């Protein structure tokens, strides 16, 4: 129930290879998040799994059975689209019922599942509205409802929250997480949002140009990125990279320190610099420090407020345990 394996799966559009042969295993019940820069092939990979695109090569197995040639409907997967893709001419009830209607589920069973889903998703009051009469978050829930009633072996989400505004996004993020905890069904989730990836995933798959850069739990990736790409991609603000003599001191081609692992002081520290822009969020302050001789800009996160202004001198000290070392190829040195 929900174990998905990609074996040497490859995808090319015409001459352009978007995904070179790729292996990936997704365990039953896992919440897997695909992240990566725009155009790296996240959606394509998801659509290959869904069956909405043909693979150019390789095998996709679902629960151990070869599903490569199966049409989307036969794979037992449900998908939630970025645009929700609700049927605008059907009421919420009909939208949710649609997959069951297609599958020929008996009427009373349909009713039951609809009301269960509606209750779970707080949609009971809206069942007779049309999608056009719903807010963004409600639409999102309908889309999820439509996926749930099929009792799929896995859910596929393609950037489901990117059309929502910031506040709603936080709410829906939590709802999806709770849903996963409740249903314990495999979920594959595409996003380019750091926070979503970190907070929701059991396992994050970092992609770049169709290649899997690293697979691991959010904290694995945060603590031990396998290469500079992952290191730079995970974490916000971005990790500071230092090359040259200072890196050589640590026996590495380059070292990386996250802004939150740098300590700033007006008096003393390892490296001296000059404050450029400082961004005061109230809860934190991000200092952009120049002229350290290490990198063009070093970003430092300081808790709360910090009484420094553009042009002031500042000393930075890294937390020695939190320094990441990379070789010339950008791979992690342990």
């Amino acid at each position, binding site marked *: 129930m929900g174990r998905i394996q990609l074996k040497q799966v490859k995808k090319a559009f015409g001459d352009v290879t978007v995904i070179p042969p790729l292996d990936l295993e997704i365990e039953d019940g896992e919440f897997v998040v695909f992240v990566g820069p725009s155009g790296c092939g996240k959606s394509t990979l998801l659509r290959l799994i*869904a069956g*909405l695109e043909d693979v150019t090569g390789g095998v996709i197995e679902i629960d151990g059975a070869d599903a490569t040639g199966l*049409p*989307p*409907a036969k794979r037992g*997967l*449900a*998908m939630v*689209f*970025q*645009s929700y*893709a*609700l*049927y*605008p*001419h*059907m009421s919420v009830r009909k939208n949710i019922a*649609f*997959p069951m209607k*297609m*599958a020929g589920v008996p009427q009373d069973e349909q009713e039951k599942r609809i009301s269960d889903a509606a209750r779970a998703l707080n949609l009971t009051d809206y069942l007779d509205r049309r999608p056009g009469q719903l807010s963004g978050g409600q639409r999102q829930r309908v889309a999820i409802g*439509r996926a749930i009633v*099929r009792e799929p072996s896995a859910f596929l989400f393609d950037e489901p929250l990117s059309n929502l505004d910031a506040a709603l996004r936080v709410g829906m993020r939590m709802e999806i997480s709770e849903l996963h905890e409740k249903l314990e069904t495999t979920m594959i989730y595409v996003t380019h949002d750091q926070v979503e990836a970190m907070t929701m995933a059991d396992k994050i798959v970092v992609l770049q140009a169709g290649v899997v850069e690293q697979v691991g739990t959010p904290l694995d990736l945060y603590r031990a990125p396998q290469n500079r790409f992952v290191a730079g991609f995970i974490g916000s603000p971005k990790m500071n990279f230092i090359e040259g003599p200072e890196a050589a001191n640590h026996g590495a081609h380059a070292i990386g320190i996250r802004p939150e692992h740098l300590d700033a002081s007006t008096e003393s520290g390892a490296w001296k610099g000059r404050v450029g822009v400082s961004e005061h969020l109230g809860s934190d302050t991000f200092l952009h420090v120049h002229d350290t001789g290490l990198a063009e800009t070093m970003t430092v996160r300081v808790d709360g407020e910090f009484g420094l202004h553009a042009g002031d001198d500042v000393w930075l000290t890294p937390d020695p345990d939190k320094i990441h070392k990379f070789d010339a190829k950008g791979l992690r040195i342990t």
Partner: protein
Amino acid sequence: MARAVTPSRKAFTTVVAGLLGLMMFFPVLWIFILSFKSEGDAIKAPMEILFNTGWTTESYGAVQERSDYFKHFWNSVIISVGSTVLGLAVAIPAAWAMAFVPGKRTKDVLMWMLSTKMLPPVGVLVPIYLIFRDLGLLDSRVGLVFVLMMINLPIIIWMLYTYFREIPGEILEAARMDGASLRNEVIYVLTPMAVPGMASTMLLNVILAWNEAFWTLNLTAANAAPLTAFIASYSSPEGLFYAKLSAASVMAIAPILIMGWFSQKQLVRGLTFGAVK
């Protein structure tokens, strides 16, 4: 620009636009007025006609006595609606394919289809006439329905294509994920979503078919003759019977005019032919 428009400026535009609109509309209005005049009054000077003459429905009586208006009317309805519905049935799958599974040559095919509309009908009348004779389709509604479907098919396909392209592909994919077969996808998802577009397409093509005067005149005799043939019996020799000509004209264009007015919104959308995204 939601800045306040002064009422005087608005009044000015209203007057100018109203006058221009009236100018465009005037010929239609005028035959409407003339159709309620007696033959003798109808050729008087305009001012006199408007203010110095009585009203009568005798022309309508005369027209109805001479030709069976309702038979022509029904033929028009059947032919124009029939050809449009048939056209839609053929065009929907084609437009689906072009809009959602575009290939390298999709646009060429579309353009080729449109270019078939440029065949000058007079050039192929005799061949078509011979074919129709051999198939026994002369003076039959079926034959006309087919011909008008064919000449409007490219337009129908193009219009539907432009509508379908506006429908997000994700929705069809969602249907596919939901287990809908291709047929169900078209029936339950695509078609209902495209209803406004199809309504516009239908309207426009009903109008085009209704007003098509070459084939409808040349391929019919008595049984299948629509209103275009009805009008042809009022043209030149009755040319100066203004009142009767007006009455016949009003009877010929009124149904489509009224339908057009009632469905103005859809029609305007339909007329845009994907010119406007």
